[in-house]
């Protein structure tokens, strides 16, 4: 008895230790691993398809992207309605390498790695040839797009090629030059364009990259490369730094490459401007997902978030007050011509300062909420004390600072009493841009009248009257310089709030003039007569170094081979 009892603890422990020697499930078995994601037996390629899908998540969104504001709030076209939001760092001159609201550095490289991981592994998966071809081409297209996001911000950046860096790889890589980065993106687009899905997508595939997207990216990159800032016009004094952010010398033939790319695009024969739709072709481009004008867009679920964030603050829908986050400026409103195509300051335009919204380019009403525009069955009231500008934080903490709100991209809610879910895809490439690219390149090559022809198509769709001479307000015998200004203005109003103006001002090297300025709003007094008074609302600052963004401070400190852009 005694002897057996003292063995008890021993026996007990042995049993337990022994039983725990056999192990099942020593690691979680419900987790995805590399093997499961890129499964050598998966003919359907379901999970590898998910891996491809994920690369799309790194495409920047556009709507309210910079801490709730549009990037265009930093372009002089608008200011944020809220005070002291981060996007104003760009216009107040307070951007720095540690204070940049939109570096998109990490995000781009995360996306690039994601694409490379896919490209490295997809060959293991026995999916059908065509699926694999599309998948690889889409991954490469998106990778090129992420490099483009870096290129327009910083100039040349480290190119990783197809490598997926591992723990022991050296990633202290120097920057590639601007020219190398441009060539890389353009060559990638050329290489993959025929492997991508054809331009006519099935409904269920809408949102995937097509051949059209690849050629459109090529057009845009070549356009930027030909533009003054990059085409030898950089302000840098140090040639090493200059080569990182642009070509060392100017070469006008780079415009021809743009023309060639556009011709290649047009040869696809599929895309066209939306000339009809509800209520107009121009509006319907943005609220119908699938149309022949949209080449590539950031896809989003259908909802009414954008209507709530942008509608004037007096609209309260089921207890939710609209936020009116964007305040377009008077400067921007003044850029819209009259219906006859003439600028408001041109003689014979018919502009009447005491009724400033009458007889204007229809795109104005499709882009901006101004006083008196109808929305949800009532007139917008942006006069002092009006429902949409109550001047009372107890009523509405935020309201327009300029007398305008942003209308573009919102659903068709002139009538009705509430918002309903609608499509809000942010256009990344659309056909109107290709036309404008074309017009710009032609004009720079001296083919001014060919450029006029292109602008006429844009103006015709916009609803500008053709005029007796069918020139849509473009004067006869327009010079190249005048045409350049006209194209720049057309681009500003046609592509407003689509993240073009911010970059266009830079590549045209006009930011130094147009962004060292005073931004105005309008103060409307509603009495027996409505009076309009232009009032300054903000001043903006632009220095030469702002032409390129500073590489994030963390990255400079972490990689000694990275050369910071000049001035930062």
């Amino acid at each position, binding site marked *: 008895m005694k002897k057996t009892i003292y063995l008890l*603890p021993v026996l007990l422990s042995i049993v337990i230790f022994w039983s725990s020697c056999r192990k099942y499930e020593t690691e979680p078995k419900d987790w995805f691993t590399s093997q499961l994601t890129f499964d050598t037996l998966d003919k359907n390629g379901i999970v590898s398809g998910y891996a491809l899908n994920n690369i799309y998540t790194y495409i920047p969104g556009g709507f309210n992207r910079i801490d709730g504001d549009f990037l265009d709030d930093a372009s002089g076209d608008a200011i944020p309605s809220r005070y002291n939001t981060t996007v104003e760092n760009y216009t107040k001159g307070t951007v720095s390498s540690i204070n940049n609201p939109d570096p998109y550095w990490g995000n781009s490289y995360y996306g690039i790695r994601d694409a490379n991981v896919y490209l490295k592994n997809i060959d293991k998966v026995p999916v059908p040839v065509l699926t694999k071809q599309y998948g690889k081409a889409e991954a490469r297209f998106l990778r090129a797009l992420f490099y483009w996001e870096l290129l327009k911000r910083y100039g040349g950046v480290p190119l990783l090629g197809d490598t997926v860096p591992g723990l022991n790889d050296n990633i202290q890589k120097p920057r590639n030059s601007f020219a190398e980065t441009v060539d890389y993106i353009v060559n990638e687009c050329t290489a993959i364009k025929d492997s991508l899905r054809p331009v006519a997508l099935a409904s269920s595939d809408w949102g995937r990259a097509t051949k059209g997207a690849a050629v459109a990216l090529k057009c845009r990159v070549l356009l930027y490369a030909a533009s003054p800032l990059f085409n030898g016009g950089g302000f840098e004094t140090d040639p090493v730094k200059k080569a990182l952010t642009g070509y060392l010398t100017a070469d006008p033939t780079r415009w021809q490459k743009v023309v060639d790319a556009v011709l290649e695009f047009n040869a696809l024969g599929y895309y066209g401007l939306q000339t009809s739709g509800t209520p107009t072709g121009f509006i319907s481009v943005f609220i119908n997902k699938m149309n022949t004008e949209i080449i590539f867009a950031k896809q989003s679920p259908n909802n009414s978030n954008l209507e709530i964030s942008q509608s004037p603050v007096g609209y309260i829908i089921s207890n939710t007050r609209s936020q009116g986050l964007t305040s377009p400026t008077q400067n921007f409103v003044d850029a819209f011509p009259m219906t006859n195509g003439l600028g408001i300051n041109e003689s014979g335009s018919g502009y009447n300062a005491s009724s400033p919204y009458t007889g204007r380019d229809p795109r104005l009403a499709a882009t901006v909420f101004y006083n008196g525009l109808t929305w949800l069955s009532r007139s917008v009231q942006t006069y002092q004390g009006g429902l949409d500008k109550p001047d009372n934080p107890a009523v509405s903490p935020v309201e327009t600072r300029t007398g305008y709100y942003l209308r573009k991209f919102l659903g068709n809610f002139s009538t009705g009493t509430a918002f309903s879910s609608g499509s809000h895809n942010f256009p990344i490439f659309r056909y109107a841009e290709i036309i404008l690219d074309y017009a710009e390149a032609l004009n720079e090559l001296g083919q001014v009248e060919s450029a006029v022809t292109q602008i006429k198509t844009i103006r015709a769709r916009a609803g500008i009257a053709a005029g007796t001479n069918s020139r849509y307000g473009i004067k006869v015998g327009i010079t190249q310089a005048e045409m350049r200004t006209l194209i720049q203005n057309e681009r500003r109003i046609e592509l407003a709030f689509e993240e073009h103006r911010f970059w266009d001002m830079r590549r045209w090297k006009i930011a130094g003039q147009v962004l060292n300025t005073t931004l105005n709003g309008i103060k409307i007094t509603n009495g027996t007569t409505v009076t309009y008074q232009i009032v300054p609302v903000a001043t903006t600052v632009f220095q030469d170094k702002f032409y390129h963004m500073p590489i994030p401070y963390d990255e400079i400190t972490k990689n000694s081979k990275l050369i910071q852009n000049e001035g930062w």
Partner: protein
Amino acid sequence: MKDGNCDFKNPFSLKAYTMKKFFFFLFAILFVISISSFAQSNKVTGVVSDSSGGAIVGASVVEKGLPSNGTSTNASGRFTITLKGASRTLLVTNISFEPREFHVGNATNVQIVLKSSSGSLADVVVIGYGRQKKITLTGAVSSVSGVELRENPTASVQNTLAGRLPGFFSQQTSGRPGADGATFYIRGISSYNTGSSSPLIIVDDIEYSYDQFSRIDPNEIETLSILKDASTTAVYGVRGANGVVVVTTRRGKISAPQISFRGEMSLQQPTIMPHFLNAYETALLYNVARKNDNQTPYFSDKDLAGYRDHTDPYRYPDINWREVLFKNFSKQYRGNFDITGGTEKVKYFISAGYLFQDGMVKDFSSRAGINNNYYNQRYNYRSNLDMKVTQTTDLRLDLYGNISQINVPQIGSPNGWNDLFADYSSFLTLAPFAYPIYNPDGSFGYSKWQLSPGTGGSVYDVNNVVGRLTYLGYTRTFENNMNLAGTVNQRLDFITRGLSLKGTLSYASSYGDPGNANTVSMSGSEFPSFYLDTTTNTYLPRSTNVYRVRRLIRSSSNGSTIRNLTTQLFLNYDRTFGSHHFYGLALVSQSSVTKTGSSAYNFIPNNFRGFTGRLGYDYRQKYLIEFNGAYNGSDRFSKGHRYGFFPAGSAGWNISEEPFFKNNIAFINRFKIRGSYGLVGNDKLGSNFTYYYQQIYNSGGNQVFFGNPNPNAASATWEGGLGNPDVSWEKEKKADVAIDMSLFKNKLSVTVDYFKNNRYDILTDRSGRIDSRFGSVSAVFGQTLPPVNLGKVSNRGIEVELNYSNKIGKDLNYAVKGTYSYAKNEILFADEPSYQYGYQAFTGNSINMQRVYTWIGFYRDSADIAKSAKPAQAVRPGDLKYADLNGDGIIDGYDQKVQGYPNVPNTTAGLQLSVRYKGFNIGIFFQGAMNFNVRGLAESILAFGSNLTSVHQQAWTPELGDNAKFPLLTFLPGISDPRGTPSTFWLIRGDYIRLKTAEIGYTLPASWVRPLKVKSIRIYSNGYNLFTWTKLNKLYQLDPEINQGSSGTSGTDRVNYPPQRTINFGLSITF
């Protein structure tokens, strides 16, 4: 039966019904017990005391030759025994004293003095897997007895420890019933990894979770020790680096059954609760801020007069929400009942405890027929049995656990916070003029102000708070913790004397993992309220579609279970050969923890296995040497990297035992120097690092969208952070040197410890994507890097403990105890990038210090603004001015410097004074902490984010200038906003001193209680957190222990459920 009960008149005016039942039960037990002791022949009463006259509680008193006839001394050291045999001799024993045979002779009342087994340092302390005499101890251990802990009426046991144990650092961040346990660290923090600094908790050799620990009933605790240095923690190997808390529970002693009952009733109120300004004062400041922002006043003179004169409380409500919502005092009840005793064969300690801690919200919900107040209800039970199975075999069987229920009201606060205190502190939710609580017709009030509130947006348009408390229901969390531990101890003297073998098996099951709790909630959705339309003078509904109160909806979540199986097999050896004393321990242990609801554990058992050894030797208790080591590991690491060896050595020299010392220095009775050095590990690496060696792909639905016209949500899979097969635990080299002294006939004892810990191999994500403060790898890599063992932190400090006890005259005993602890850590290496400005580096600073602007005053006027460095935003006179550290004329992120103090104090101290005179005892205990920062954000300080306090009345004006206590009042966010621009203005020291506990008690004289057939009755009153003096109140009306987020980068958003001040009344009866 019922009638019979009614005849029973309770002589005590306590809660009659429960007391009746209780006494009925007690008498039944007493009756059974007293049968055996009725043959009264030779009754002897007495007192057992130590050499200084202090009563010895729980000493065992047994009649010689009749081991079954025994008792133990009560709380005042008294005992009563009836002698049955002929020896007339008592054997008196207690753990820290030399056993004594006392011949009673014919006396009936005796005074027995026990001698400490070797001086006053002779106390036995509990260490890892054993006990050791303090005189031969070479490690750093501090302990506190259960008796001391019971002087503190707080509900969570760790709240009793602050300041009592040198080396113990704690912060009680909340007073919410059921969640008021302080977070604590031993010797501060040594790792910048979140979640990896909490000590290991061992109760009766079994690991406890933090939550289990806070739910222990102090009545069950015999002693509590903290193990601090390498020599004492090395036995825990890979889990010992953060220090260890070791608790032993009370066990039966050979004695007649002794039944004790303690009943306590406490009143609780917050230590601090902000006093907000009234409607008139607030409206005045609102207009000031409007004026500052160049806007017209919002409140007209008529409005202001209305608020001031209270002429129309419906149009101009002025509500003191504190009075409306909160009770002056909330109650807490606590009761314990235990039976202890034993014979040679079986000893037992059986206890049951009950705690009910009520919340501070006034009762509104009884109108809806529910109880939605905050509360914590807990039952504890324990049965510790010791059986002598054979002459050499002991069997221990412990069954214990607790059942708890924690209730939290559904508040429906703005921003998804379910916290009444968020509402209370928020100006946008509960301004003093927010709305009248009730309308004249009795319906719930609301207001136009709240329908379109201040500057907050519709998120703050939440319904009437009293209505929400009435109708929105509650969430109730249930927890059931059950533990079973069995131990067999076999003495193997037949192999060699002093050898024994012990096996332990323990199973712990917690139903309701606090991280994934078992809850039931009853939630209401809506109820009508009406606001006064001031233009038409009619009442309109807040929501036009709500006419009635909707029914409550019940929902429940099953929660998950934690299971913990621990097996241990010990071989113990302890023998003295003449002057040589050897002892040793060999241990094999394994534990396996399975959590079901946590993705970090993922249902896979988390296994630890280890071999532990200890080898000690002393020569005449003079020269002491000990080696400890553990070879153990965890299966959370990859094969080949699971096991590590953690050795430690320690030595001591009792100089006072040397003849030259003994003969020459008489006033020092004991003088010991000791030191230890060793290596310990820490495998608590934070939930960010689970299966550290694997690379996992993540997946999720609805990540991307394709398709037209309705986009189809598509799933996505993406590569997760890379794996590191070489990943391992953190390691720490601990060094400790100390002096133990006792002087003046052992009246004064002093212990001074100096320690230096070097933590290394701290897991660090080099890409900085997990903790953005650290990491030097460029984002061009494109992925989160795996954790790598490379961080280094040093932590050094000093601890002092002083004890002085003496007596004046015959009956007056007094004692003073002081502790002081200092532990300062420094990040030596954390893979930071090389900053352009050195002051931006966290390396070289303490863990969790923040990178903030340096506040240097206010911008005085436009001339001052013109000549000073400015930030990006527009600056106005009265804004906070910051130092331009890099001298570029612009205030931006480059001017943020790592400075100030971390969020956890680096110094803490305690002072205990106690006096005992006959049956009376008085004790007061002060605790303080120093060198830590508190930062307030939105609802805790921001003007018009928070409700306004007196500090906002001293906001900057040109007249006040630099005497202002607060920047210019404004609605615009800017450089002075505490949320966006952290600065030394907002980050201030929270140093405090507290009257932590005080106790006064009286043990009724034995002659009074004898007629009641009761051994002793003690009445007492004690208190917790009675007074606080803090530096914090120059800006914040917050409790200084409010925490600010684990990474130290954030601040506190709002008033939490404040820690409570508790005043407690108790009665303890021993039968």
